[in-house]
Every structure is written in C-alpha cells, then in structure tokens.
C-alpha cells in the first residue's frame, strides 16, 4: 500500500516533550511510551512538527540522488523556491546549469507548469462562477488539499481541479524526452527538487489517486550543497547556453513565494493566506460563507509560501528578498527576449477526472449510531478531565484524550491528575485494608501490645 505520508520520527532523538503535539493542525501526534507517534491517516505532511521540534527528531522520508541510478535518462524539475536559496551573483540560468551538473541529463523549470496552471485557472474561473464553486481554492499545496479532505470536506468542490505545476511540468518533460530520445517511458526518470515532504507524498500517494509522472522527490536541502559547489566552478559557456533556452516568465517564477500564484490571475478579488493555522481560519470563514466577494484563495501551508518550506535551506525572509530579485530579472528577460519566454501550452494541463474524496480519519465510527454513542461518551469523559490541556497524557488537549479513550487507544489514568486521584483512592483503600488486617492479626500479638499500655 502507498505510504500515506512522508514525515517521520527519529526515535533516538525524541524526548517525548509536547511541542509537536500542540502544533499539529490535525491533532495527528500522540506521545506514547515517551515517544511521539504520528497517526498516518491524519497527517497532512505540513511539516509543522519538523519546524517546531527542538530536538530535530522529526524528518522527512525523501529520495536521494541514489534514486537516479536505475534510469538511463534523468530529468530534474526545479521548484521556483529553489532559486531563492541562492543569492547574488547566482542567476536562474546559473542555478539550472548547476542543478544539471550534479548528475541529471536535463532540467526543467516547474515555473513553466505553474504558468500552464495559471492559464488553466483563468479559463476555469467563469465556469466556477456559474456553477457556484467560488471562491476557488488553489490545489497547488498538497498539505492544503489534504487538510480540506480531512477537516473541510465541504470545500472539496472549490478546489482548482487540475494537477499541480509539478505534474504538468513532469508531463511536458516526459513528452519532450520521448520525442528527443529513443528511450522507453520507464527508462526516463523524473525528479522533483522539493521544498517539502508534502510534495513527496503527492507522488507516493497522489491526491485523488491520480497517476503521477514523477519518479522521485528530493529535498532542496539534500541537493543544496552540491548545487552550491557546482555554482562555484561554473563554466561561462554553459551559462550562456542556458541563457538561450526557453525560460519561464515572471508569473511562473513568482509561484515560489506567497502571493505569486494569485498575481497571475485575471481577478482582483483574491485573498492570499499562508501558514497552515491561518489557512484553517480562512477555510472556516469560507465554510461560513463570510467571504462572498472573494473569487480565488491562494493558500500555502508554509509561512511565506514554498520558500518557507520545511526542507529549504535559506531563511524565509532572505529567500523572499531573493525571490523578488529573480522575479525582477524575469521581467527584464521577458521584455528583452519575447521569443525565448515560455508560452503556456493549454493541452498539457491535467484536469482531474474526479474530485478527491473526503478523508474520514476524524470520524468516530462508520456507523452513525455507534458514532453518536461514542460522541456522547467523549463529551462525558471530557467533562470529567481537568480541562488543563497540559499535554502530559501525550494527547494535545483533554478533548483529544477523551477521543482516544472512546477509540480504545488510551485510558483515563493516562491523565496524571486522574492517575493521582486513583493512587490516592488506592492508598486510602490500602490503609483501610491495613487497618482491617491489623485488627485481625492483633490478637496474636496481643500480649506484647498489652505490655505497652
């Protein structure tokens, strides 16, 4: 079975503190036997726990450069956020050339796929308007799509119903490679250079069970040192060659940071939100129909957008300033080289044939009668717990412990206050028993006792 998520725990490093359980937006983490455990079916791979863990015990299961070996021809797909990892004097052609040099046969900018998706979204907007699917919600961030499937299934129909820029670019890259080489499709390996684990899960377990064109996903942090090394000994001729290639325009490049996707749309009525907890607040507003005049929501799970991804290297604020420079350079390039700028090709867009399903991980029981019973019980237990939400039981708050208890995953005495109560009552029973015991055994020691009194 496909791996449901990519965020992993390093047991040796985990000390069982409560930092991650408190930050997880889907309450997917529990500390059991002193170690954090992630509930597979609930994790949306937002990477909040990776960012917050002071002991660096959370990491992502990603592919490495070894994954290239089985393929005869390999293609790297550069996420727009990759550029922002490198400051001056690096330029986009230089970063792309350096990426190629670490061991790929070709490189593609995912910014190209982003342009296609932007175009598709513009075309789709009138249809969304007439079928009351507004506001449209971007489906580019897999963590956002998954949080919708799990917590806001009523908003699934509002998602932009196309595969992400990564998939579109992979499709393009494979088509081109097949046309250019005599290779079979399975001899071509396509690898996305990613800012996050969510994108890896989008490949190992694609949203809506779609077929993926991507063969592996490497962390930006994994290839960063190699790219840096290649940048330092860059061959000027190669850079010139890359400068003459077709490059993505500023719209596509802009997707790397929060606000970039919305910028390319032909509507002013958009809202941009970043950070998974903020995204959840906005989803709540949409469900309550409080955002009636908004037509498009750009939502990114990471603060700052993909440049804030958990597997990036550069500080998000300096990455943002670099991103602006790359966008400016793209604008200049566009103005000077009209013919070398990618023109989005509509027929590579990959529309969803069906919408993703709701994820029932939060449902208490598939049978509503049992679910009602469990809910009732859960409320009662919550009422009896101290309400301190201390996390010492290993659940993020008292209500979550109550839920675990009705699901049969925990017991009331996991709450240290309840445990204390139990110990106290057991202690009281013990001393009562001791008293009883003494009363029965005393006659035997009777004489001695007598002596004292």
């Amino acid at each position, binding site marked *: 079975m496909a791996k449901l998520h990519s965020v992993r725990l390093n047991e040796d490093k985990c000390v069982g503190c409560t930092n991650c359980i408190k930050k997880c937006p889907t309450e997917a983490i529990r500390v059991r036997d002193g170690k954090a455990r992630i509930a597979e079916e609930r994790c949306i791979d937002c990477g909040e726990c990776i960012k917050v863990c002071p002991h660096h015990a959370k990491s992502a299961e990603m592919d490495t450069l070894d994954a290239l070996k089985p393929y005869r021809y390999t293609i790297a797909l550069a996420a727009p956020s990759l550029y922002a990892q490198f400051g001056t004097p690096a330029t986009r052609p230089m970063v792309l050339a350096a990426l190629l040099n670490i061991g790929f046969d070709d490189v593609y900018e995912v910014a190209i796929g982003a342009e296609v998706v932007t175009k598709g979204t513009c075309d789709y907007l009138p249809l969304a308007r007439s079928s009351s699917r507004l506001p449209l919600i971007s489906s580019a961030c897999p963590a956002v799509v998954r949080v919708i499937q799990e*917590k806001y*299934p*009523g908003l*699934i129909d509002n998602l932009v119903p196309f595969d992400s820029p990564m998939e579109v670019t992979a499709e393009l890259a494979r088509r081109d490679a097949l046309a250019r080489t005599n290779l079979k499709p399975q001899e071509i390996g396509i690898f996305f250079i990613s800012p996050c684990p969510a994108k890896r899960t989008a490949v190992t377990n694609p949203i809506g069970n779609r077929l993926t064109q991507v063969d592996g996903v490497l962390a930006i942090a994994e290839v960063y040192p190699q790219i840096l090394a290649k940048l330092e000994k860059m061959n000027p001729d190669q850079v010139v060659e890359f400068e003459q290639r077709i490059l993505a325009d500023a719209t596509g490049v802009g997707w790397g940071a929060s606000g970039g996707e919305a910028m390319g749309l032909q509507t002013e009525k958009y809202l941009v939100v970043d950070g998974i907890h903020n995204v959840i607040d906005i989803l*709540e507003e949409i*469900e*309550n*129909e*409080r955002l009636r005049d908004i037509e498009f929501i750009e939502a990114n799970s990471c603060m700052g957008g993909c440049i804030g991804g958990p597997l990036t290297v550069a500080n998000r604020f300096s990455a943002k300033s670099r991103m602006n420079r790359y966008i400016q350079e793209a604008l200049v390039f566009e103005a000077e080289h009209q013919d070398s700028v990618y023109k989005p090709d509509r027929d590579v867009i990959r529309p969803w044939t069906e919408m993703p399903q*709701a994820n*029932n991980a*939060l*449902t*208490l*029981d*598939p049978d*509503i*009668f049992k*679910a*009602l*019973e469990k*809910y*009732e019980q859960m*409320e009662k237990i919550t009422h009896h717990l101290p309400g301190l939400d201390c996390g010492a039981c290993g659940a993020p708050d008292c209500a979550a412990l109550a839920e675990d208890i009705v699901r049969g995953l925990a017991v009331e005495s996991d709450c240290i206050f309840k445990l204390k109560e139990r110990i106290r009552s057991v202690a009281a029973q013990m001393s009562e028993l001791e008293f009883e015991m003494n009363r029965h055994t005393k006659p035997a020691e009777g004489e001695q006792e007598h002596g004292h009194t």
Partner: protein
Amino acid sequence: MIEPVKLEYKIRGSDFINAGEASSGTKKALNRLGVSPAAVKRAAIAMYEAEINAVIHADGGEAEVFIYSDHVIIRIIDQGPGIPDVSLAMQEGWSTAPDIAREMGFGAGMGLPNIKKHSDDMSIETEIGKGTTVTITVRFQV
C-alpha cells in the same frame, strides 16, 4: 430510539469576534459523526446565520443542537426584541441591521432567506419584547 446527542452553547450579544463558535462547534461534531459533507455544510451555514442574527439583533442567546442518526435540529433562542413582521423579515434584502454590523459585512438581509434555502424545515416563533426562537431541521440524506 436512540437518544440524540445534545450540544449547548451560549451566544454572546454584540461579540463579533467570537460569533460563529456555536455553529463551528456543531460542524466539528457533525464531521466527527461522519455526516455527509454536503449536509454538514447546509447545517453549518443555516446555524451560522441564525447565530449571527442573535448576536446582532437580539444581544445574544443560546443554541441547542439535537443530533439524531438521520437529521439534526438546531434551536437558536434569544430574549431580544422579537420580529414584528416575520414575512417581511424573510424577504431577501430586508434588514434593520445597525451601522456597526453593516461595517462588519452583515446586514444584506440575506440571513433568514439563506436559512430557508439550506434547511429542510425552518420555523420562527417570536413575540415582541420577549424574544425569538428559530428552529432549523437539516436531514442528512436527500
């Protein structure tokens, strides 16, 4: 017949910041129970409108929610001024919302019509000077 799950909430008047807590709590509960997303959405929107009306027009009140296996009954009860002409209030665009509420984006006169649209049954009991109770039924299967 199995007892319904009962939820209760206090709705505080003129508290725009926390307004919506009752309906969002109810929505969470319905999701937990595995109710279909479409039905949850209808119940949540209808309840939210009634809840906001209690906040804006009646200085708060209470919400009672009864969840059965195939439907939910939501009652929003207030001790506010009451509605003088219910059929007028039910008309799209009719509103007496104060300026402050309008500034917050309320007052389009769409709340009650929206409740009607999203519920399977809706009734309003109201008495001038005593208060209003809006009862909403949403069935889970269509």
